[in-house]
């Protein structure tokens, strides 16, 4: 080997492993595809206007973006130090403790499922009148919801590989449509620059929590950026940059779109939102753009929802796979279809849950737009907000014990500031839940959602404590993820199956 001693040859291994390293744009793309711009701008915002009667949504997007950006400082810093970044419970397991981590992982499952199932309802509610308008077909919302549910279920279980490219194309088209429609609003005869959407005082007024909870739904998915910590070109720069860019892009796009829509909707925007629902976004721009553009916008809206569903479905299925491999969920979830690598069981369970909820809503006759799409989405948003808050505390906890390699701002400055802001936001969101859902204070939905999160959190903590006593090697691996050598696939399960407790 002396021949190579003078100058080391180009390492084939380094080159091969570096080939698919991701840049900033790729990470931003991935994050935004879960965020689904049209779903938020045309779906969540008008429905939220109608339900909460609050119009200061643009400033809420900006405020949430600022808080999340501060939170992200410590979040991406910690991602460089831990395995399985991208899952809140991994942070919480290592920053606060494994029991709370398991609790958080179960809360996250519920929150993500709420988003997923909300999208089924949203699709049905929005597509049903469109099918009538376009094809003269009178189809019940739940039939259409079941059609996209079936599509998602089939694609999910087969883990179709073209997903990524399709999502990226749709995403670009969506952003263009949102932007074009918002610009068109500016030239509408009704346009009158409204100050209500950007009224800073609303952030401390009654209903502030509802606004913030609504806004945060638009950002869900940003936390996935750190999944690529180890696959990015430059872990210290790519992921942080991509995260901040994604947060800023979301805030600017959504904030601007909401502002121009409200400004162009005339004086009674809340009333119009109530009557027109998601059509509001398209109606206010229609006189400038004409029917063709509006139809195109609607079509993209539907594909946007489908894209969001498929994207979220895969996130949920992989999340369950990871938990199954760790032993936090039954091991069966840690299995895949050998031929495709699809995390089959997580996908199937998600689909089963979705089917159940659609059927229950259809039979009970509940409103798919408000009671499923909006409640589910904003309820899931509250869940994610609580998880982010816990994660922020975990970041502090982690860096107090492992201060190496990060400066004060990344370790403590930003995380402490972020935690304080997030605690305030969480408090506001939970105390405004009646406003958010548009129901009477104390009525059923206002306590069912927080209670569900609380029950899962406590159940997860108890399960972790059981694991600590009965299966210490599983307990030790909590939060390390499917890529960890301590995780449990078929092989490790085989080793553990006959194993008395003499391994550790």
């Amino acid at each position, binding site marked *: 080997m002396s021949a190579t001693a003078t100058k080391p040859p180009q*390492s084939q291994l380094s080159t091969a492993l570096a080939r698919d390293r991701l840049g900033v744009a790729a990470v931003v793309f991935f994050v935004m595809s879960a965020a689904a711009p049209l779903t938020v701008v045309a779906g969540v915002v008008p429905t939220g206007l109608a339900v909460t009667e609050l119009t200061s949504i643009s400033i809420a997007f900006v405020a949430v973006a600022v808080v999340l950006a501060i939170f992200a400082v410590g979040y991406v810093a910690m991602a460089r130090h831990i395995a399985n970044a991208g899952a809140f419970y991994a942070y919480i397991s290592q920053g606060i403790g494994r029991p709370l981590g398991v609790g958080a992982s179960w809360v996250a499952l519920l929150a993500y499922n709420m988003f997923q199932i909300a999208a089924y309802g949203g699709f049905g509610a929005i597509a049903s009148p469109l099918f009538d308008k376009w094809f003269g077909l009178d189809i019940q919302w739940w039939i259409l919801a079941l059609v996209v549910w079936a599509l998602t279920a089939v694609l999910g279980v087969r883990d179709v590989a073209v997903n990524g490219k399709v999502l990226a194309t749709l995403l670009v088209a969506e952003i263009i449509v949102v932007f074009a429609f918002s610009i068109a609003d500016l030239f509408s005869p009704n346009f009158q620059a409204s100050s209500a959407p950007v009224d800073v005082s609303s952030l401390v007024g009654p209903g502030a929590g509802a606004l913030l909870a609504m806004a945060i739904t638009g950002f869900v998915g940003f936390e996935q950026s750190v999944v690529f910590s180890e696959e990015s070109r430059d872990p210290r720069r790519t992921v942080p940059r991509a995260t901040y860019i994604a947060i800023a892009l979301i805030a600017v796009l959504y904030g601007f779109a909401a502002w121009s829509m409200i400004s162009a909707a005339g004086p009674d925007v809340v009333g119009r939102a109530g009557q027109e629902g998601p059509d509001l976004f398209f109606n206010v721009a229609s006189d400038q753009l004409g029917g063709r553009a509006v139809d195109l916008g609607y079509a993209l809206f539907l594909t946007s929802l489908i894209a969001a569903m498929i994207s979220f479905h895969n996130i949920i299925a992989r999340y369950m796979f990871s938990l199954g491999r760790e032993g936090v969920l039954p091991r069966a979830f840690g299995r895949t279809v050998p031929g495709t690598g699809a995390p089959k069981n997580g996908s199937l369970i998600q689909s089963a849950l979705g089917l159940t909820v659609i059927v229950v809503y259809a039979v009970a006759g509940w409103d798919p737009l408000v009671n499923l799409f909006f409640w589910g989405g904003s309820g899931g948003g509250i869940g994610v907000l609580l998880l982010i808050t816990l994660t922020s505390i975990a970041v502090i906890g982690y860096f107090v014990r492992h201060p190496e390699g990060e400066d004060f701002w990344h370790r403590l400055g930003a995380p402490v500031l972020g935690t304080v802001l997030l605690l305030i936001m969480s408090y506001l969101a939970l105390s405004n839940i009646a406003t958010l859902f548009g129901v009477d204070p104390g009525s059923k939905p206002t306590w069912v959602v927080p209670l569900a999160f609380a029950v899962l959190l406590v159940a997860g903590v108890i399960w972790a404590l059981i694991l600590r006593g009965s299966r210490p090697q599983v307990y030790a691996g909590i939060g390390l993820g499917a890529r960890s050598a301590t995780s449990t696939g*078929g092989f490790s399960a085989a080793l553990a199956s006959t194993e008395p407790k003499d391994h550790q």
Partner: protein
Amino acid sequence: MTASAQLPLADDLFLTAHDSVKGKCLLSPATLGLGMAAALIGELVLWRRLDIVDGKIQIIDDRPTGDPAANAVLDQLLREGHHRAVRDWISFLATGVATDLVERRLARAALVQRQEKRGLFGSNKVSFVPSDSMIAGWPATRIRTFVGRGEYLDIPDLVLTGLILATGLDQHVFLTLDVRDRTALFEQLRRRLPAMLLELVGQAEAAVGDAVMARRA
């Protein structure tokens, strides 16, 4: 070479990864690659050319082996002495290097043949499939037979068993094992698989899980 002879570890895994009726690969290319990579590294351990300690590869003997595929991997390991993490080597060899080496070795032995399939958009897809449907099923049948008779598997077959489990192939090939045989097989794995190879299979399994999470599987 008669059909009943035991092949090198990676060859056995390659055949096991193919449907014994249609010859179709049962694994995704990425997962097959990870299996092939781990199996070739495993062969070098069995050749006593390297050790695996704490996730790192240590070369204990740099003499060539009698086998071109294993040699190619050993050469590369020697050339790139600064990379030692077994996980990195599995990832690298899984990018197509390992599958390629194994396919060529099997093709030379006339156990697989090249198959060209017209793709959806006119592009031709080349794959190697077992030349005889009997061959593909042979390694798994051997394992099942040994376990059924209550006999000990040799070390290469134990590693093969481990990699079958790690890649998820057990959902195809161990489906017919009853509870007793399954328990006996797992018991053998646990008691008789040497620590180094156990670590190798564990790393392969983690790499498969990683690929699933990153949507590369």
